């Protein structure tokens, strides 16, 4: 029994392999080490809107969750003295399905110490340019540097509103963002959105201007990556985790444990650092001009 030949898919898989090789070459040339961290983790991430798959042993006991990103363990490596690390791995998210979402997808995460979010934005621009050239998919609109705009700029430009006016509650912020702002971001060339509201800081530090030191790049309305100037304060990190747990509980969402070893790492000392998480399937989709991330995968759920 064999499936019918699909030369177009095989060509896409060759391009995918070339992209992975280009990413590894890019980081090797910059003295990063490639690391591997576990897929099954004691806490899958506490951002209130993340849903994780729970993993059980044969006796039915929970042994943890599939990682929604390798973030905590990558940061523990920084606390252990690593300076430049990157990882290409599968990450898993429940209840996400659509042209730009798949329950398991390929994540690229990298961290630098010492570094600022500006260093990571520069890495991102250079990486995408390098990958596009390696794949023969270079176009001039990818040329760094990409335009920067704050969340407030983006709301003013595309929804004629200010961040203060929209942030009366998070749902209305995200509704306006999803309907009016994000679809128009990066229409001509990639853009980097900075200065997120401090309530959406997640694991980012707070900048002197009061905004979260967090950035996201968008191209053709697709979110390509999310990066932070990292929060290194263990007390503040625990406070945010407790707040996220309370938010989850109030919303009737599953409440995951706090990763205590991650907090211990911060207590021992995390260097000033910055990191970024980039969706490799989305990057491939954008470079190929494809309609969905599923079309860049051998076996998305719909064909599994």
């Amino acid at each position: 029994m064999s499936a019918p030949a699909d030369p177009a898919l095989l060509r896409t898989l060759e391009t995918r392999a070339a992209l992975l090789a280009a990413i590894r070459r890019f980081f090797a040339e910059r003295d990063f080490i490639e690391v591997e961290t576990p897929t099954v983790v004691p806490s899958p991430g506490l951002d209130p809107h993340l849903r994780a798959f729970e993993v059980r042993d044969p006796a039915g006991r929970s042994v943890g969750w599939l990682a929604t990103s390798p973030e905590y363990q990558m940061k523990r490596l920084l606390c252990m003295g690593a300076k430049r690390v990157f990882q290409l791995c599968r990450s898993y998210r429940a209840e996400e399905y659509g042209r730009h979402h798949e329950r398991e997808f390929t994540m690229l995460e990298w961290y630098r110490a010492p570094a600022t979010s500006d260093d990571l934005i520069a890495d991102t621009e250079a990486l995408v340019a390098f990958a596009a050239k390696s794949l023969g998919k270079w176009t001039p609109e990818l040329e760094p540097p990409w335009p920067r705009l704050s969340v407030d700029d983006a709301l003013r430009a595309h929804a004629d509103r200010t961040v203060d006016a929209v942030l009366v509650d998070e749902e209305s912020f995200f509704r306006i963002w999803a309907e009016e702002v994000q679809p128009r971001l990066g229409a001509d060339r990639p853009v980097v959105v900075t200065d997120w509201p401090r309530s959406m800081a997640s694991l980012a530090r707070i900048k002197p201007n009061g905004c979260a030191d967090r950035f996201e790049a968008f191209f053709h309305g697709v979110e390509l990556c999310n990066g932070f100037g990292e929060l290194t304060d263990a007390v503040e990190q625990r406070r945010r985790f407790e707040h996220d747990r309370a938010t989850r509980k109030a919303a009737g969402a599953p409440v995951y444990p706090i990763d205590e070893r991650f907090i211990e790492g911060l207590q021992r000392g995390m260097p000033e650092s910055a990191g970024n998480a980039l969706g490799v399937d989305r990057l491939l989709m954008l470079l190929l001009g494809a309609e969905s991330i599923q079309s860049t995968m051998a076996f998305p759920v719909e064909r599994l």
Partner: protein
Amino acid sequence: MADTSDIKKGFKMLLDGVPYAVVDHQFVKPGKGQAFIRTRIKNMMTGAVIDRTFKSGEKLEKADTEERTMQYLYPEGEARVFMDTQSYEQLSLSNEQLGDNVNYLLDGTEVDVMLFEGRPIDVTPPTFVELEVTETEPGFKGDTSSNTTKPATLETGLQVNVPLFVNAGDKLKIDTRTGEYVERVKG
């Protein structure tokens, strides 16, 4: 009760008492944010298409609709009477509800009738129907290729533009999606 994970093309839901069918949909989740399903939905009563965004996980009420194959029987005042080909149950739709579709109804034509809460709200005729020309200017012999057309009236009252060679009494194949002439049927 359905929720947003049931949304797919053609899914029918009730919003403010009106049935809508999903035309297009996209899952969106701004980074670290609330997930939404952006949809384009069609009002099944009026045909109007609107955009609507739902929170992921939001409960939806399924619209109680069903499609049945029915046969057109006869006109009755300002309405047309149809019969279910399985149950022989009869029901009527007003000419206003039928709109342009009245032009494709001949005795015995089978159509798909959409029912909402048991009441007919829409009719889909066959994609192609064959109708006889009742009135048109006499044809020019031999002219089978010209791009020039002339008006013709068909047996249901439908007006179409036809090639010059078409004569009264000819049977024509009509595309009901566009209301346009396709070809002359050899009779």
